């Protein structure tokens, strides 16, 4: 049960962190499009949390919980979303796109593109003969994108160490997966790349973690890539305040709440005899930690215009001979 308790604790942090971000978005302290994560914590903790520091994670336009689970600090992620210099991208990227190379975390707001990018990270890993792997997360909607196909094929013929995780949260904006994805299970697409069909109920965080570890190990052994469909449910709208009534029945959301990963993990823990007070204490600790975080975050500076440079104009430190002098004075 200690393992599950740990996973539960991590999910609890993400749940509250997401809630906090949502509040900050409503207060207009997070400025860009913000995509809530509630209900999908089983994926972040189960999959992203299974990676080593030297593994690379490529995430999406809904990246904040992935980032934290991968090992970016709450400070760096939150202040990035708040546009402060202390953020992963120095506040230049925002809530949908930031890079944290020191934590081997990258995300972006163009759906599907990361499947192609992943092949390059993994190619370098393979060539460097490390046993690092690259994990690439994308949504059910992204699985209809051309880059999904091209990236999977390339990774497969080159045997690259990529764990492709399709985070099927049932919706792409207002598009229900069953109407827009032409196969019953997204994992059915695996066969087209000579890969195994793997679907996991990612609301069961232990099962998600088990499948993640197996896939990662497979890739470390040089037997990648692996494609996994991680099934979950997007409990909130695509963004805060989207017109949900146009695409789903509130009853479906209620039903999904019954199956969401925190509830399930908690029930299991209680069943196994864990003291509820202990779980409550965990929660209080999380809340207190996040409150301190926010206070600190609000004091951080915004970047100034100097940060918005086009790096092309800058002469190179390490190879000045390849640049003419006028590149200094653009």
């Amino acid at each position, binding site marked *: 049960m200690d393992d599950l308790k740990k996973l539960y604790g991590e999910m609890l942090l993400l749940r509250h962190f997401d809630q906090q971000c949502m509040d900050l978005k409503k207060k207009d302290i997070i400025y*860009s499009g913000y995509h809530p994560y509630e209900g999908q914590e089983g994926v972040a903790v189960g999959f992203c949390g299974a990676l080593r520091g030297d593994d690379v994670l490529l995430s999406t336009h809904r990246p904040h919980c992935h980032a934290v689970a991968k090992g970016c600090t709450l400070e760096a992620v939150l202040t990035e979303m708040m546009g402060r210099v202390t953020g992963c991208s120095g506040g*230049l990227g*925002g809530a949908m796109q930031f890079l944290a190379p020191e934590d081997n975390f990258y995300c972006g*707001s163009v759906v599907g593109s990361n499947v192609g990018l992943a092949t390059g990270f993994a190619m370098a890993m393979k060539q460097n003969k490390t046993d690092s792997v690259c994990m690439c997360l994308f949504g059910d909607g992204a699985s209809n994108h051309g880059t999904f196909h091209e990236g999977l094929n390339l990774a497969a013929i080159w045997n690259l160490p990529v764990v492709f995780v399709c985070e099927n949260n049932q919706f792409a904006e207002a598009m229900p997966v069953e109407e*827009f994805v032409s196969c019953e299970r997204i994992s059915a697409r695996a066969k087209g790349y000579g890969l195994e069909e793997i679907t996991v109920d990612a609301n069961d965080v232990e099962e998600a973690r088990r499948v993640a570890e197996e896939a990662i190990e497979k890739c470390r052994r040089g037997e990648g890539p692996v494609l996994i469909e991680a099934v979950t449910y997007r409990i909130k709208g695509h963004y805060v305040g989207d017109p949900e009534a146009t695409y789903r029945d509130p009853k479906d959301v209620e039903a999904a709440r019954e199956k969401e990963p925190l509830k399930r993990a908690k029930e299991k823990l209680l069943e196994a005899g864990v003291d509820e007070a202990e779980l409550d204490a965990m929660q209080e600790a999380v809340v207190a930690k996040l409150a301190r975080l926010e206070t600190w975050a609000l004091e951080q500076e915004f970047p100034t215009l100097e940060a918005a440079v086009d790096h092309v104009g800058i002469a190179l430190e390490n190879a000045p001979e390849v640049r003419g002098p006028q590149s200094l004075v653009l």
Partner: protein
Amino acid sequence: MPTVTFGEAIRQAYDEEMTRDKNVCLIGEDVGRWGSLYRSSRGLLEKFGPDQIKDTPISEAAIAGCGVGAAAMGMRPIVEIMYIDFISISMDQIVNHAAKWRQLSNGKVKLPMVFKTQGGAGRRNSSQHSQCLENWFVYVPGLITVMPSTPYDVKGLLKSAIRDDNPVVFIEHKSLYFDKGEVPEEEYLIPLGVADVKRVGEDLTIVATSWMVSFALKAAEQLQEEGISCEVIDPRTLWPLDKDTIIKSVRKTGRCMVVTEASAEGGWSGEVSSVVHEHCFSDLRSPVKRHCGMRTGIPYGPTLEMQCIPSAESIAGAARDLVAQEVTAAGAAL
């Protein structure tokens, strides 16, 4: 005249054209259920049904290709690419097919279609959701490129774009959707390729597009108080360019400034600047100035993005400098 938002003017154009011609259809991500990201097609799925309003998967290449195929079959599709940043994924279909097929068939294949998208900054969505990419399309033979700046213009131009037999790239600005303006109740069209003189003036011609038009007009008002009279021209169609209107204006004012949100380098502002120099060289008191966005990815945050693009103040400042300047050209000295 009723006052409506830019978004509502678009909806009206759809509504009228889809009523008039059942071949007109809208294809794109969440154009149906959601009525588009900025709600410009709300209610239309209910009214016109899925034959005319088509929600699609996230497949920008296929969607664009679908539009080309449908247009070749005589439909009049409007393909919506949610953000212009993602039109990068549809470029093959637009450039190698839509732009080429009419010529390649000696005019037999008509492609009455619109690639409709929105670009620009102002909604704090960072560098992958805020680009100005319009000059990509001006640069490609076989395409018409439109960038409206007001509710009145967007409605009249969109209706014309839908009726045109050539592929039109129609670029809205995300910061304009909630702007309001007068739109007549009776039907009207605005021809493609005709500029609009948004303000008449004597001392300086300002050519501005899209969101920048309102900033230029604000700057012009302020400058008027200082005794500088600006003519503000909105070409509306970037290509074919209404050179006549611009040239006529510059012959009168003797000075020209081009204002774009896009950075100058490699941009459409250079096209206008070149055209003006080529045609008005002997009328110019000083070289045409390009007052444009910074050459950078639009940064995130509450204020930084607005510092990267022209503002009413910066336009006024640049205009003041330009009017103060009198450059002697060599030609005259000979």
